[in-house]
């Protein structure tokens, strides 16, 4: 019995490693965020494909096909694309964030997460809603201007950092600092 159970243990270990190798492909962000984009910018009539560095979707109030000089009214971006090293408790939290040209966050959507305690931290709509209307200049500190959630601090901290740092990256790259109120 003893050698048999050792054999079973080795077999299970090898099986797990095998499964891990097969399954450990990178999780890519949702390739069809159209609905999210509309929700982030209800006034926009058109969106650019994902372009630029950092990669963003540009939102337009006037279709750039009819008016090529139209300026974007805002930008949407995936936090895990901008910040691949930002991990929550289990892994990257797939948030898509919208920011307008005045540096105000127009919305946050949790498209996918694998946080064990995500169901009472980053998934309830209250989490995303509290970022709507925040300025990119805000401190984004959990426990101060972002609500803390007991037992899920890793998830909340990571999601908040992701929104803050990704928004700052986009602001630095695309926004005019003079247009963003201090």
């Amino acid at each position, binding site marked *: 019995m003893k050698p048999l159970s050792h054999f079973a243990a080795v077999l*299970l270990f090898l099986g797990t490693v095998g499964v*891990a190798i097969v399954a450990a492909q990178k999780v890519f962000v949702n390739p069809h965020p159209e609905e999210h984009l509309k929700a982030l910018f209800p006034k926009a009539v058109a969106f650019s494909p994902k372009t630029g560095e950092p990669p963003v979707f540009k939102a337009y109030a006037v279709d750039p096909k009819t008016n090529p000089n139209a300026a974007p009214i805002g930008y949407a971006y995936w936090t895990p694309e901008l910040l691949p090293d*930002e991990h929550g408790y289990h892994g990257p939290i797939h948030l898509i964030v919208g920011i307008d040209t005045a540096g105000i966050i127009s919305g946050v959507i949790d498209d996918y997460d694998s946080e064990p305690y995500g*169901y009472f931290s980053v998934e309830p709509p209250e989490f995303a809603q509290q970022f709507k209307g925040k300025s990119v200049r805000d401190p984004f500190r959990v426990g101060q201007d972002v609500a803390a959630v007991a037992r899920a601090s890793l998830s909340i901290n990571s999601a908040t950092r992701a929104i803050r740092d990704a928004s*700052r990256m986009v602001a630095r790259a695309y926004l005019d600092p003079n247009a963003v109120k201090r």
Partner: protein
Amino acid sequence: MIRLASWSLAIATVVCTIAPQATSSSAVSADAPRPAYAAFVAAQPPGGGAAPADDPWGFEEEEEKVETWGDVLLPQALDISLTAAFLAFAMFSFFRKSQPLKYATLVLSVAYLGITKSQLVSITDLFRIVDWSFPTMRDGVTWYLFTGFAILSTVLWGRVYCGRICAFGAFTQLMDATLPKRLRIEPPKWLEKRASWIKYGLLVATVAYYVATKQFGVYRYVEPFWMYTRSADVVLWSMLAALLIATVVVRNLYCRFLCPVGATLGVLSTLTVFGIKRWSECKTCTICEKTCEWGAIDGPKIIMTECVRCDDCERVYADEKKCPHWLIPVIRSRKVAEAMAAGRPAPRFIELTRG
């Protein structure tokens, strides 16, 4: 001596697991920007003047980029030290084989690991292997400490984690200790043996389901550990209620028959380094087998995959008034004395061995 060696091995393994992680994470405190962001900011073309003071954005956290280990560990210090203290207390109760200390450990487990922290080893920690995704060292010192302890203690002594660390197991054990015994039904041996295999099936099925669908939320349907977060829907609460009612009748039902984490640790426990020692008398005497509440003793053999190191049999073992191992030599010497007194030849006995 052996115990000392095992401890140094334990510490060495933990250090080896943690050290590469620790050195690879350069950026630190909970609020500090992550490397990708820091690299992005550093690569920005300097606008006008190159000095940071002239940065037209001047976001506040960006000046905090130089971090020390103090910055990482300080916010987590209380959590780490309380967890370490709890684990130390649990091991103290284990080595003392003390029942009151064991129950104190169980109460602490429910109160601290359960209600306060909701930290339990979960099947989601196996999903981590599938995704090859672990918490960063700087945020997850407690996770590494806790999970490392669960694995290492299982390899060294068996399922100690199940027996006294896990906050759900602690809860059902406390239920068992406080509820009236007449409510309880002992399943027959044959059924118990077969039912103990369910957990392995559930483990394989759940991991396979996750690999196939990537639906992370499935874990809440196979393990009730979410109950400590006190946040769930009607279906989950009903499932939990059914499980707890069944646990009133069959003690530690979930741990013995269903728990996928227990199954994983059960597989690991086949490697147990320091098992329970038995004497040759155990082949015939079944007093420990009757004492075992986990169905982990089968005649002369301890089924390590089921044993949670609850100490019950070891306490019987140590009891010189109960365990025949201690009584037999006394009875034998009395018989020899009687024979000598009566002038008969001394009776011969089977030799007692330990193994």
